[in-house]
């Protein structure tokens, strides 16, 4: 047919990290997953439940063994048919140092002992230790099944879109894959452009340079909402905004001070001001209220400046020199708070926090850095708190977030927090396989975290996107894992 090729341009806050970003390495999988280039064995539904994807079925053979049956008729972008051997191959690359897919983090998370190919469409995965999160981990975008690329096809996945090119931090381009197992996509091309500045993204939408802004600035969204204008998409997500305080030194190693900080932050105001009333729920624990299967509904993170002050007074953190800032060990408590660019709500949150801490006699200096660099700075003791925004359950499993952030020695436990009780609970949680059995454990985990405050949860954000009115088939995924689907389309 002679219709003009349909190209959808999406503005996103982050871009690819290299020009051939293998989905399995680093955090590359998110983008290629959203772009529909790579696919995992198991998917995550819009209700955060597991969905068959490349795997049609998955079966627990023993505590450490999983049988996975592959979907038939799946084709790689280069036309070859997906086989069990391909899957095994793909996973093997995670451990191959020097290979672009090398991903020690995921490898550790999966804890695989072996992969056995039963027949062309059946595999058996065996883990070292019992790991109830195993299947959930397979939903992570990094666990994509890929074939080694070559010149014409630098990245060979199985998704509805074929990788075309990427420009570091700028753009990610893919084209429709007619032989997709789920049916040919309606779009011919999909372009994801990185526009870190939400304001420019909004302008770009206004000037029709892009058709969809995936992370629309909240303030502008509120205005659209008011005017009932624009093609608005909103959905609550598991994304948690939280502070990670430094626990192995500095003023925040002091428990009372940390408690006071949490009590002194008026989360309602933060949500109202930094999200411009668009939506967001005050966090009472690390999990959002809509994650009903895992959230501990009895927890509270109240705003109580009076109690905060009392707590500080009791701990001997008082303002002796009358400059309005309390002292700890003779020095003014001036916390260095830092966050990064990319999510519009981060910066105002930081500023509001500063104002609020001031009111309970705690000084704060704030600045904007970059995520990785901020982690280094936190580890080095250059800063005291790092404001971050994470999806708390990208794979739908409650283990991921605490295991990555607060378990002893966890990869992002930069603040140096360690609680053996918590570690034991997490260990136990991973070895149990029934939701009912695991629920009380994670409720306890949330409780401990709220008491020790190795992270200080602030709020869960509602994700908002705005289209130009012609975007069809777009839906915000609560974990923001998916975006491009064969149904995604652009009206004439």
């Amino acid at each position: 047919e002679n219709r003009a090729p349909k190209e959808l341009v999406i503005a996103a806050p982050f871009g690819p990290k290299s020009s051939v970003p293998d989905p399995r390495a680093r955090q590359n999988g998110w983008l290629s997953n959203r772009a529909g280039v790579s696919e995992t064995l198991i998917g995550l539904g819009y209700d955060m439940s597991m969905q068959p994807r490349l795997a049609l079925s998955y079966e627990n053979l023993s505590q450490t063994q999983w049988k996975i049956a592959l979907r038939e008729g799946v084709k790689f972008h280069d036309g070859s048919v997906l086989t069990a051997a391909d899957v095994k191959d793909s996973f093997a690359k995670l451990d191959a140092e020097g290979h672009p897919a090398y991903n020690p983090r995921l490898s550790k998370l999966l804890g695989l002992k072996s992969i056995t190919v039963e027949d062309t469409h059946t595999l058996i995965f065996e883990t070292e230790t019992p790991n109830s999160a195993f299947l959930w981990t397979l939903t992570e975008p990094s666990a994509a099944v890929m074939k080694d690329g070559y010149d014409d096809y630098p990245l060979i996945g199985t998704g509805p879109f074929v990788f075309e090119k990427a420009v570091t931090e700028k753009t990610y381009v893919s084209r429709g894959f007619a032989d997709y197992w789920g049916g040919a996509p309606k779009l011919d091309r999909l372009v994801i452009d990185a526009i870190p500045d939400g304001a420019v993204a909004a302008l770009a939408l206004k000037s029709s340079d892009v058709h969809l802004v995936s992370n629309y600035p909240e303030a502008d969204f509120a205005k659209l909402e008011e005017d009932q204008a624009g093609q608005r998409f909103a959905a609550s997500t598991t994304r948690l905004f939280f502070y990670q305080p430094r626990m192995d030194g500095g003023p925040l190693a002091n428990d009372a001070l940390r408690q006071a900080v949490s009590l002194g932050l008026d989360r309602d105001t933060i949500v109202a001001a930094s999200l411009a009333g668009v939506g967001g729920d005050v966090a009472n624990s690390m999990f959002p209220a809509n994650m009903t299967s895992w959230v501990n509904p009895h927890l509270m993170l109240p705003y109580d400046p009076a109690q905060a002050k009392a707590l500080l007074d009791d701990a001997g953190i008082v303002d002796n020199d009358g400059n309005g800032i309390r002292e700890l060990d003779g020095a003014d408590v001036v916390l260095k708070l830092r966050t990064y660019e990319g999510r519009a709500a981060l910066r105002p949150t930081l500023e509001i926090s500063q104002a609020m801490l001031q009111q309970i006699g705690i000084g704060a200096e704030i600045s904007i850095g970059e995520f990785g660099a901020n982690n280094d700075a936190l580890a080095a003791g250059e800063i005291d708190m790092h404001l971050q925004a994470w999806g708390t359950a990208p794979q739908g499993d409650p283990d991921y977030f605490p295991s990555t952030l607060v378990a002893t020695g966890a990869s992002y436990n930069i603040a140096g927090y360690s609680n053996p009780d918590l570690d034991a609970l997490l260990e136990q949680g991973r070895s149990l396989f029934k939701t009912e059995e695991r629920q009380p454990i994670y409720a306890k985990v949330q409780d401990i975290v709220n008491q020790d405050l190795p992270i200080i949860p602030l709020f869960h954000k509602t994700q908002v996107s705005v289209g130009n009115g012609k975007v069809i088939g777009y839906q915000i995924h609560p974990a923001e894992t998916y975006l491009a689907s064969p149904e995604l389309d652009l009206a004439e």
Partner: protein
Amino acid sequence: MSMSLSNPNVKQTIPAMPGTWTLMVFALTLGAGMLMTPYDPTQADFLNRLATPSALHWFGTDHLGRDIATRVLYGSFWSLGLSLGVVSIGAAIGTIVGLVAAQNGRWVDMILMRTTDSFFAFPELISAVTIAGLFGPSTMNLVLALIVVSWMKFARLVRSLAISVVQQDYILQARLNGLPAWRVLWQHNLPNILPGVFVLWTNSWSRTILAISGLSFLGFGVQPPNAEWGAMLLDGKAYLLTAPHIMIFPGLAVLFAVLTINLTGDRWRDRLADNI
């Protein structure tokens, strides 16, 4: 600089400079404004967020409910004061280096100019971004970075101006008459190149205002909650479509300040060129 008053040429010209009064009135207005405003530039008022300009808040309030007019006033301290300090220090260092290099020629010139060139190779914003970024964004790092890279411009211009002066017979005369080098610099070179330096000084001052606000706008400069104009613009960026007044007033403040300085600088130049 107590020295400047002992140089009759400088002494004579300063009161005659037009624009000095404008600047003074400007400074007084700012000072009076700061004294009179009932608001605190950093105190958030969450009930009053994003208010549009009104009798209570002349320029409206920002996303934290802070009075923008007050912040613009206080911002002048950061934007004007900080840059003035940075540039003046840089100008003093650079002028001395440039004059000494031009006067002495040969090896001194060689060493000084190569050092200057080495530093010069780092554009202000680049080095400020690098230093502020690598050492952690803070106002102090910013100031240091800017000073380190602000003097070379003066050194180079002064040298090139002074060299053409140095070849003049009257400089030779002065040196033949046994004047020590610094006196020749001070009495002969300086007055001749002063107009040029003045243009560059005012020019750099305004450029530094722009640089500081640009850096703040990129997040490398003056850190919140300090009311630097560029930082205020950054605040306003997220509300560009909904509350444009946040971005308009600080932007106008930058424009107006830089414009005033530049125009005053031009008039000084014209006067100096005529007078000295």
